[in-house]
């Protein structure tokens, strides 16, 4: 029983249609993003599903999963706050920004907030050097940029997301 295929039949068909019919392996990365969409990490039982769809081994899929940083193998926060601390951003204060934000949230870099919503990470260059400090928000199957940030601005974004999660919980 291919759970992934059962859950997203149309999307998987659309993904496969993007590549030549005999090159289904190219669909591995889009399928991993799909498998990750709901829980924020790739559940290990979906690897067999992806193997079946693409016709390659689970081992090969696991190698791809482990190679790329935007795929997560373990559960983390619902949202990843990924702050670039590479050279150009660091020259514009991103390291201090990261440190202060972590203090305010009561976490160390790489850790998840007590409510399970936010994992704060330092990451490599995100092509936004002129608008540092900045972070990308990965979660709910999306990736969005937040640029020209201050700790206050970011905390406002975080509060809005906490509010959204509360509303969702209240609405069942």
């Amino acid at each position, binding site marked *: 029983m291919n759970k992934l295929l059962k859950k997203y039949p149309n999307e998987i068909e659309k993904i496969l249609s*993007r*590549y*030549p019919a005999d*090159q289904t*392996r*190219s*669909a*591995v*990365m*889009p399928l*991993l*993003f799909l498998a990750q969409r709901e829980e924020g990490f790739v559940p290990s039982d979906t690897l067999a599903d992806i193997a079946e769809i*693409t016709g*390659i081994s689970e081992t*090969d899929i696991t*190698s*791809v999963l482990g*190679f*790329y*940083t*935007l*795929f997560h193998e373990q559960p983390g926060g619902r949202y990843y706050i990924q702050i670039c601390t*590479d*050279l*150009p951003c*660091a*020259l*514009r204060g991103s390291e201090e920004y990261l440190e202060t934000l972590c203090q305010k949230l009561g976490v160390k870099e790489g850790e998840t907030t007590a409510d399970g919503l936010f994992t704060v990470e330092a*990451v*490599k*260059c*995100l*092509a*936004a*050097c*002129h*608008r540092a400090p900045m972070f*990308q928000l990965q979660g709910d199957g*999306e*990736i*969005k*940029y937040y640029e020209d940030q201050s700790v206050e601005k970011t905390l406002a974004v975080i509060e809005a997301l906490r509010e959204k999660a509360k509303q969702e919980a209240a609405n069942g």
Partner: protein
Amino acid sequence: MDKKILLRHLDVPNINQLEVYRQHDGFKAFEKVISSMKPAEVTAEVKSSGLRGRGGAGFPTGIKWNFLPNDSWPHYVVANADESEPGTFKDRELMESNPFQFLEGLMLASFAVQANLSYIYLRGEFWEIAHDLDQKIQDLEDVGLLGENILGSGYSLHLRTHLGAGAYICGEETALLESLEGKMGQPRLRPPFPAVEGLYGKPTLINNVETLANLPPILLNGADWYRGFGTEQSPGVKIFSLSGCINKPGNYELPLGVTYGELINTYGGGVPEGRTLKAVMSAGASSDIVVVDQYCLDTPLAYETCMDRLGAPLGSASVIVIDDSVNIAWLVAKTVNFFKHESCGKCTPCREGTFWMNSITSRMMRNEASAADIDLLKNVALQMQGKCLCALGEFSTMAVVTGIDRFRSDFEKHVRS
């Protein structure tokens, strides 16, 4: 310059909408080319424009196109939109703000090598851009500019986006192809080159986003017009990404040959008040660290002059500006850590070299290093040079060696004497 050639959204509001782009000469080059030119004529025009690859290598674009053999089919074109070099953020602005010009360029390149299916490989972080491009591609299919038998020309073309998932190495073109084929992004041994055996083993042309965005104006206005900008060996305009210790960071579209001094002081507004210029890196983290003196400031930013005068390639023209508040040992620790994180692990010199360089620079940043560690660090870098499978390993050594040679006293502040 009166009007922008690439960053046209600065002159034309809403040029990211198809109707507006078409009102401003959009797709005129493509319509002209598919209705009245042969593929070889398109390539010849691009070749005589002197356009050079904007991803960093500066290889002549028209010559690259000619490498695809005509006895092996199908051909593929892949737009390299993996922009990941620290200090580089130009392709992103083009795709976000003037996307149709980039797409038209990709369509022109596809026609020139007669590809019927072309991909745009974007770094996974450009998730929003990819979704926007998907919509724009749909818009073009809806008006018949993409699809089967485009405008009755007999030529068919489909475009597809493909998202990476966070790996700097995928900007290297053979690693990019591996990733597009659903594998780990590890570079291939060359030859064969992608032009002969690329995507799915077929002849493949890979061009940078900015390179492609240059094509519509070149094919609309002609090679001679394009050569009216820039220098003899580096014709045309270039987007310079300015970052670091600079008052006005951002992208600046300027003719090649503008000097460092003009870029940093006239356009970038100089370094913050009370500080002085110390160094520049012209190709992001992959650069030599160049000491800023009058000779440097007078150097024209063109492929030949940067190399001849400063020994440092222009690269992607991602200029990171460093002022006197920055310790170069700290800076080198940053770049080394980047490359250590991004090394794909395939070849030993890079995998081990970046690991050990990172160990030494980390020791320096903890102030636990000894004086001998400075030479040890340089020695590891020199051992790596010329031995790595792809350019990543080589690039990781540039800042290390030039940093130690030119700013040794900064390193001495981080070691026990």
